[in-house]
């Protein structure tokens, strides 16, 4: 399956980064470029559990048929916020069936970030991906 262009671009960007330091820097930069979420959206509903740092994921669904999902997110930790940005880049602006067709594990492993997806990691990444997929599955 061909990946959506923005994901392929992200994979291409990461391919240049051979050592973990550069990859972490890039992840952190991606996090810095995330648009801020409203203070009111930093609420319990949007909070992602299972994370040492605080993570919020805000879901929007438009009126189109089929509806398109957009996600916004934030974290108080830099690396986690970068991972939030990666997850949003993967899943945002897509329909439920597009979301279901994406394999987050495969994409993250192409980005060299799959170690972060283990459920034992307390970064909330797995919880975030699970939440997005269950939203898509509920449609």
């Amino acid at each position: 399956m061909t990946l959506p262009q923005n994901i392929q671009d992200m994979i291409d960007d990461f391919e240049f980064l051979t050592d973990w330091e550069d990859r972490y820097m890039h992840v952190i930069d991606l996090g810095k470029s995330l648009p801020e979420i409203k203070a009111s959206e930093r609420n319990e509903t949007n909070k992602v559990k299972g994370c040492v740092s605080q993570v919020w994921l805000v879901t929007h669904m438009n009126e189109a048929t089929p509806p398109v999902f957009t996600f916004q997110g934030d974290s108080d930790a830099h690396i986690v916020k970068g991972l939030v940005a990666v997850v949003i880049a993967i899943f945002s602006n897509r329909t439920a069936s597009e979301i279901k067709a994406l394999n987050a594990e495969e994409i993250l492993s192409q980005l060299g970030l799959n170690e972060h997806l283990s459920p034992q990691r307390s970064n909330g990444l797995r919880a975030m991906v699970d939440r997005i997929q269950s939203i898509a599955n509920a449609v």
Partner: protein
Amino acid sequence: MIFNVDDIRAQFPILSREINGYPLAYLDNAASAQKPQAVMDALTHQMRTSFANVHRGLHTMANETTEAFEGARAKVAKFLGAPKSENIVFTKGASEALNLVAYGLAGEIKKGDEIILTQMEHHSNIVPWHFLRERYGAVLRFAPVLDNGELDVMALKGLLSSKTKIVSVVHMSNVLGTINPVQDIAKWVKAAGAIFVVDGTQAAVHMDVDVVDIGVDFYCMTGHKLYGPTGIGALYGTLEMLNRLQPFNGGGEMISDVFEDRVTYNDPPHKFEAGTPPILEAIGLGAAIDWYSQFNRADIHQHEMAVYHHALDGLRDINSFRLIGEAPEKGSVLAFNLQGAHAHDVAQILDKYGIAVRAGQHCTQPLMTRFGMHSTARASFGIYNTLDEADRLVEGVKKCLTFLT
């Protein structure tokens, strides 16, 4: 024995591990300590040579195993300065010990009875008391912590009244490192006619503890932070208190007689040890105490504090560094934050350089709230840590800054 950190390190096989291409610098000892060969050998030796269930056995290995198990209890008693082995109840750890005390005293709690804790308690010394609040109407009061991480002892003293039923205080904080003046507190608590419980999870590792000198009713410790196995800890209680305490778990071993209409209990400590106990873990704890006791405690303390101060001196050069916990009396726990960086990021990046630290709330949410922070990073030093590892921590934290600010 002369204290030589290289010789000590050589006894911990795991310390030669590499993490992410770097030699492991294990600075998470307040969470759990690594195990020396002597402890591993004690466990395997027992399993290879003599193992059976303990107590009531009539065959040779049952007797031998019982002797080793009860021998471990005697070692714990001596280690804590308890008068007799009977003062020591084996538990799963300090959390279970504190839960046992709370549960065992629940029957004495009436609505409005007060339980005094401090803001620096670990959740394991808060939540069991919340049970008594929820179920029996106890009122929890928290003695405040000063800005430098010291306990406000005068405020604690002021909280004591005729309503006070129990006072439970940590001996050494797992975040601030603060060592509390439990001996003074014991006198005040006794004068108020209340029960005094001390959580010695960290202190039992880093200080010379004498439960009789302190004057406690109950004292808790855990094995895995003392270079021993997981799943084993101990509750010290005076015999008077252990007789007063209701049992928590029912089952075999803990009874004297069982009838259809009544049951009579075994004497302490067995009254609290239903079922087959963690036999090997207890023997392993005994071995850890033997191993640890070959060193002079003052030497260990001096070494750990030298590593702590070496790291602290280096970290203080960093502008954004903030130490949490500057009490004059403190152990080798270094909790800190970097302005503009999250503790989680710091721990994750340090791990990439082979340095293991903890980040988070350290099971002390009221303390984090008190200091207005969501989390901290924490390096905690043990017997095998070196000045070189302290240097690596400082360098690692500096590298974190290049990523994060």
